[in-house]
């Protein structure tokens, strides 16, 4: 449904998006994950035709943003970052305006507006001016305007920012519901959210796509990577020599009292702590400490985005 091909966008000398390609299929919720300033918003703005890339292109339902920008926008529902709306308009007037511009036939407009008010739980706010709404309700109005024409594809930028926890849960449920039939691309910088909402996650950093996979894949990737840290006394060389293949020594440093501090990674997801004990005994050494730590999605994310260095 949404295809992005080799997208590059520069603002002056800074590269905001660098050769990014991906696709979002119908019935798929794709989380666009990355730190602030990674290029998520730029990519989404390109997809909606708000700006154009230096090279590469994006397509929605096979329509190219260069050739049929209006058609692309017709197929999309877009929630901009920070939800800029017309503050002077009332909620219903605003939704009615969007519905008209979206080409919904006049006689269907009241019904659609009612539906959106219902879906986004805006009943108590419908009569108010947008300027009177809280952050959470603004976000819902933004979502309502993105959904009002029942688009096959949704692009939601920072959907949950500024919402309180219960609202976030509610919105996530809504997105998952919608994602059953629509292609949804939504950006977030919150890992947990991507983890809990998406079918697939794209990790972007510094304009480049650095990781891709389902939360499960990524989690598996993480669970496969266990880190063992231990303090060993004895023949350290022999110990490392005898280590099974799935272990890798990250570093070993001689510590106090003749102990060597070691860090090992293991590509296997099974807990091998006992094996390490056995091996220690086998080489005639002593263990003072052994701990196993499974890498989380967060570690993957930090690793991929080099956020850990900061």
């Amino acid at each position, binding site marked *: 449904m949404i295809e992005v091909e080799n997208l590059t966008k520069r603002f002056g000398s800074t590269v905001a998006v660098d050769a990014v390609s991906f696709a979002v299929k119908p019935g798929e919720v794709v989380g666009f994950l990355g730190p602030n300033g990674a290029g998520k918003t730029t990519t989404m*703005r390109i997809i909606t035709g*708000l700006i154009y890339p230096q090279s590469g292109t994006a397509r929605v339902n096979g329509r190219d943003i260069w050739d049929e920008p*209006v058609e692309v926008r017709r197929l999309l529902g877009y929630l*901009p970052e920070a939800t800029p709306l017309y503050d*002077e308009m009332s909620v219903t007037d605003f939704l009615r*305006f969007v519905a008209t*511009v979206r080409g919904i036939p006049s006689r269907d407009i009241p019904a659609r507006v009612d539906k959106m008010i219902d879906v986004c739980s805006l009943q108590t706010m419908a009569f108010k001016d947008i300027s009177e709404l809280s952050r959470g309700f603004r976000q819902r109005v933004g979502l309502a305007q993105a959904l009002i024409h029942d688009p096959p594809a949704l692009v939601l930028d920072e959907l949950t920012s500024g919402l309180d926890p219960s609202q976030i849960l509610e919105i996530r449920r809504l997105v998952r519901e919608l994602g059953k039939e629509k292609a949804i691309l939504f950006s977030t910088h919150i890992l947990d959210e991507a983890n809990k909402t998406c079918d697939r996650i794209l990790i972007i950093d510094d304009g480049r796509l650095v990781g891709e996979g389902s939360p499960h894949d990524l989690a598996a990737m993480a669970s496969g990577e266990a880190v063992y840290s231990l303090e060993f006394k004895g023949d350290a060389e022999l110990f490392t020599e005898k280590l099974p293949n799935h272990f890798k020594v990250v570093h070993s440093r001689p510590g106090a009292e003749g102990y060597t501090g070691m860090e090992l990674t293991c590509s296997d997801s099974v807990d091998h702590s006992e094996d390490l004990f056995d091996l220690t005994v086998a080489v005639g050494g002593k263990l003072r400490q052994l701990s196993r730590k499974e890498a989380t999605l967060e570690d993957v994310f930090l690793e991929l985005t080099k956020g850990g260095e900061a």
Partner: protein
Amino acid sequence: MRQVLAIYRKELRLYFDSPIAYIFIIVFLAITSWLFFRTFFLIRVSSMRSFFTIIPWLCMFFIPAVSMRLWAEERKTGSNELLMSLPLQEWEVVLGKYLAALTVYVVAIILTTPLAIVVGALGSPEWGVIVGSYLGCIFLGAAILAIGTFISSLTSNQIVAFIVSVIIVAGLTIVGQPLVTMFLQGPLIVLVPYAEWLGLANHFSSISRGVIDSRDIIYYILLTTLPLYLTVKSIQASKVG
């Protein structure tokens, strides 16, 4: 067209739901009628000429005040982000917004017709001239408004949009006047006819005395459509970069 109409109605709503349009119209009416009645009962001629001669000079300040917010405000609040994500051609947005601002101006002009009624009640004025002059006012305003719209599309600061528009419109107003053309001496004298053609006020003088010239009308049409076209292009260019 439905899209244009939707944008038009939205913009018009924003004008009339906020104090801008009211302030504009009230100040415009107060100034025009005050200036008009200052001399009307002294000269005692049933003509609106004195009224129409001040219009170009008033438009110079008033219309940029209407047009300044058209784009600048949307850029500032970011709502153009939302607007441009709607399935609209750029020209539909430009046209809708422009027509809404034009409506505010036309309403202000129409609200001055009681002056014409007073003139008609006290004597028998040349109605043809008055109707023609009103038409001229609208053409003139349409052109100035288009220029203001274009300037507004280039900046996100309303004050900058206003000041730049006033400067450009003032320049265009006086460029054809003797005030400027008298400095075109020597080899520059060949520029005089071009400067005169360009002058906004020059094309208003015929209309204000009751003569409609196709050249003036075409001038105003060109001066309306070109800035609007450039507005569309400037918006496209800002997207493509």
